[in-house]
């Protein structure tokens, strides 16, 4: 059940941020949503209760397939995130009609 709560929290927070003004909040909102998907996909493998810390002995090993999915997804998400950050930086060079971090209240 921890997974469900964690997913709910991350999705709520991420959704709130992506709906805000300012591309930085949007990007970070997507980071949170990405985390949510990581937890969700891992939870989909089933909770095997595993502490797999070295020396711990651990529970049963977790389903490796969702872990592989998540690893792939995390790297893709990272690539997209940094590209979005690149857009954010490039975006400060040109005027935007709506939301732009360059025009904060300062």
């Amino acid at each position, binding site marked *: *059940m*921890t*997974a469900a709560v*964690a997913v709910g*929290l*991350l*999705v*709520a*927070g991420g*959704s*709130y*941020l*992506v*709906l805000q*003004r*300012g591309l*930085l*909040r949007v990007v*970070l909102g997507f980071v*949170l949503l990405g*985390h949510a998907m*990581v937890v*969700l996909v*891992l*939870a989909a*493998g*089933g*909770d*095997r209760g595993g502490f*797999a*810390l070295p020396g711990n002995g651990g529970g049963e*090993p977790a*389903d*490796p*397939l969702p*872990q*592989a999915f*998540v*690893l*792939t997804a*995390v*790297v*893709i998400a*990272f*690539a997209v*995130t*940094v*590209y979005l*950050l*690149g*857009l*954010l930086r*490039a975006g400060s060079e040109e005027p*935007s009609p*709506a*939301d732009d971090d360059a*025009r*904060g*209240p*300062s």
Partner: protein
Amino acid sequence: MSLLVALAALGGLAAGAPLLTRALGRNAGYVLAAGFLGVACLLAAHTPTVLDDRTVDWSADWIPSLGVSLALRLDGVSLVFSLVALVVGALVMAYCCRYLGDASARGPVYPLLALFAAAMVGLVLADDLVLLYVFWEITTLCSFALVSTAGAKAAGPGRHALVVTVVGGLALLVAVVLLTLATGTTRLSAVLADPASVLDSPYALPIAACVALAAFTKSAQFPFQSWLPGAMVAMTPVSAYLHAATMVKAGIYLLVRMSPLFAGQTAWSAVLITVGLTTALLGAVQALREHDLKAMLARSTVSQLGLLVAVIGVGTSTALAAALLHTMAHALFKATLFMLVGIVDKETGSRDIRELSGLRKVMPWTAAATAVAALSMAGVPPMLGFVSKEYLFMGLLSADVTPWAGPVAGAVAVTASALTFAYGARIVWGAFGGPVEQPELYEPAPAFLAPAAVAAVVGVLAGPAVSLLDPVIDSATTDALPGSTPPSIYAWHGLSPELAMSATTVAVGLVLFWQRDRVDAALQRLRFPDGPALFTRGHDALLAFGGRVGAPDRSPSLAAHLARPLLAVVALGVVGLLTVGPVPARVDAGDPGRWLVVALLGAAVLGTALATRTVALVALVGVAGLFVSLWLLLSGSLDVAITLLLVEVLTAVVLVLVLRDRPLRLPAPGPRRLPTAVLAVAVGLVAAGATAALTGRRELSAAGTFFLDRAEELTGGTNVVNTVLVDFRGLDTLLESVVVGVAALGLLLLGTATVPHPTDTDDVLLRVGTHLLAPGMLLLSAWLLWRGHDEPGGGFISALVAGIAVALRQLASGTVPTRAWLQPGPLLGVGAVLSVGVGLAPLLVGDALLTPFHLVPFLSSALVFDLGVWLMVLALVVAVVQALGARPEHEQVAA
């Protein structure tokens, strides 16, 4: 076969017309006219067959998947309509030779007219519903193109005509589709032979409505009639041919064709008679108040088409015979009148009867021809128009929808005809009567006048000789209404009610003409809705409405566009709540430690929503990521936990690079915070609910069991997750490195507008620290890569470690890596070649894509593959550092 030849010949004329006009100039029309007459003879040669109540058929497969064939059939009805189209066409073509200048003759007019003729003949010959529709639409397009040749002033009327007729065409399409469904065939003759299937199907009413709509739009019936006067902006030959004699008769043809299905059905009759007579009356009244000769003729055409529709609605054999006969008569006299008005227009420069006067003195032959044609239109004996009108009256009187239908229809028809007489006289008198005002004018060249004169003379001669037409009309009527006994056609059939009606018509018409000034004054006071203006208003309203519908899509706010999918998710969640019943029990390992992590995570996430400063936001998102990593660790996903942690660190470094010279405060949040928060919480609840309900409720999956049990045995790797990544699902990993590489490329492109910007860091600790740290991290990275197959590690993790080393160095020293090998391009290229090469190599020996193999002992394909991934991920990090580590150019200048 000769039907195909006929159509092909017409098509050939259309295709060859540009060549003809290039060679012959405007005289190409004579060749075309001869061609039309030739085709007409070809078809007319089948008259004996048709009179014998047989048909000429030809067919070939066209679209067998849809059961559509190129089926042609010549029967009495199609013979009448095709001969009208071809004979009038020949006259108009001959007329064009003098009407057109050489320059405009080289334009698209001739080819389009020939194409139209081909389509019109095809339309009446088609024995396949789809084929009929195809020709129907081609005539519409030809009409639009021909109207458009009038230039910019034709844009509005052209649009009006096109939209109205295309809407009607679409109605025809619906009718075709439904008829096909009802009868199981697209063969027109088969459909018509099977009225029961149509009438008993649920589609009977829609089919009839759609057929009527199609015919009403094409034949300019009320309330669609106003496109036709507008189309008069086209040049006169076009008006004469398309918009008087033939194209507008396509609707008439369709109604006649469909008579076997619907004739005698009360609703059909009621609608056709009502609409037809309304149109007839309205058109006649409006014709009588026009001053422009061409506009008068256009209104007159509307009126005459109305009479035709009404009489087809009556649906008796007499009525249909009358419709066929009047179709011929009308085509003759109306085309003649148009051609003559065109001559007047050309010679005098005006078509306005208030400006024209006394032309009979200077153009006596033109005047005579006009008078003859007008008399035929007015229904004066012994013209063909008189005979056909007699039969119209006879047909209308036989209307039996209700007992009073016949008399009422007759009375309305007489009224319309009296008005016809009056505007006929108005045309002749208006242009040719009165004192001579332009004595310098003279008779047109004989060649110019000849086509119209021929048609006028035929109109005179055909009246008394109408019984020659009797067999054709007889056969056509039988084809239009199988099993009926058509009346015989005589020029004179004694003292009948119709004759009285004709006499009344002429008498009232004379009175109207005699009192023309008063009539005119009275009519000018009438106000009619302005059809074209109404159409334009509707058109503009549609455009404006469309603009409003599209407005939300133009919102620049990202949130507006993201909210919709999120709302969809909430809706899906609600549906799920209502539909998903009991789910299996959880297979859960309860664990208090993770609850603590989740609680802390919740606090961090809440903090991100409330943060107002950039640093706080970034830090809190980082903390949230940390707790997620911790959760992963506690859940037994060590590789994922490490990767996520490294990604977090790297993201943080990138964020610092991006944000270092940004305002510290975030912009104010969006305007609608509460709804946004509600939506976000709702989405969160749905996500949590879905995760709770749909995950953790089954045993280990089959694939998971397979990997845990057999991965080591099959791949030699003990890190199962890594074997899944590089061995079992290497394709995903390969593609993911492609994604990474493309992102790197993209960043470099974004960075092209920026210049490298060395930052001066005074933080000695950081600088020295990273100098010491970097080599160590690179070593660590290499080690992680090497052992990745067996222990946590592998290409991603080790590349991320190396990447952090590079990024930290940049952060500390501000120098962009300049070593040639540490450029994103070569890293990407080599990485891609390694990964793809290792993936494709097995194909060379006949194995499947990405089959693992050993190059040499200790150097498995998996390691090389991982190295390729390593290089591409590293390329991304270097690209990030290069692209984002620089400062935008304008800031550079300002600094």
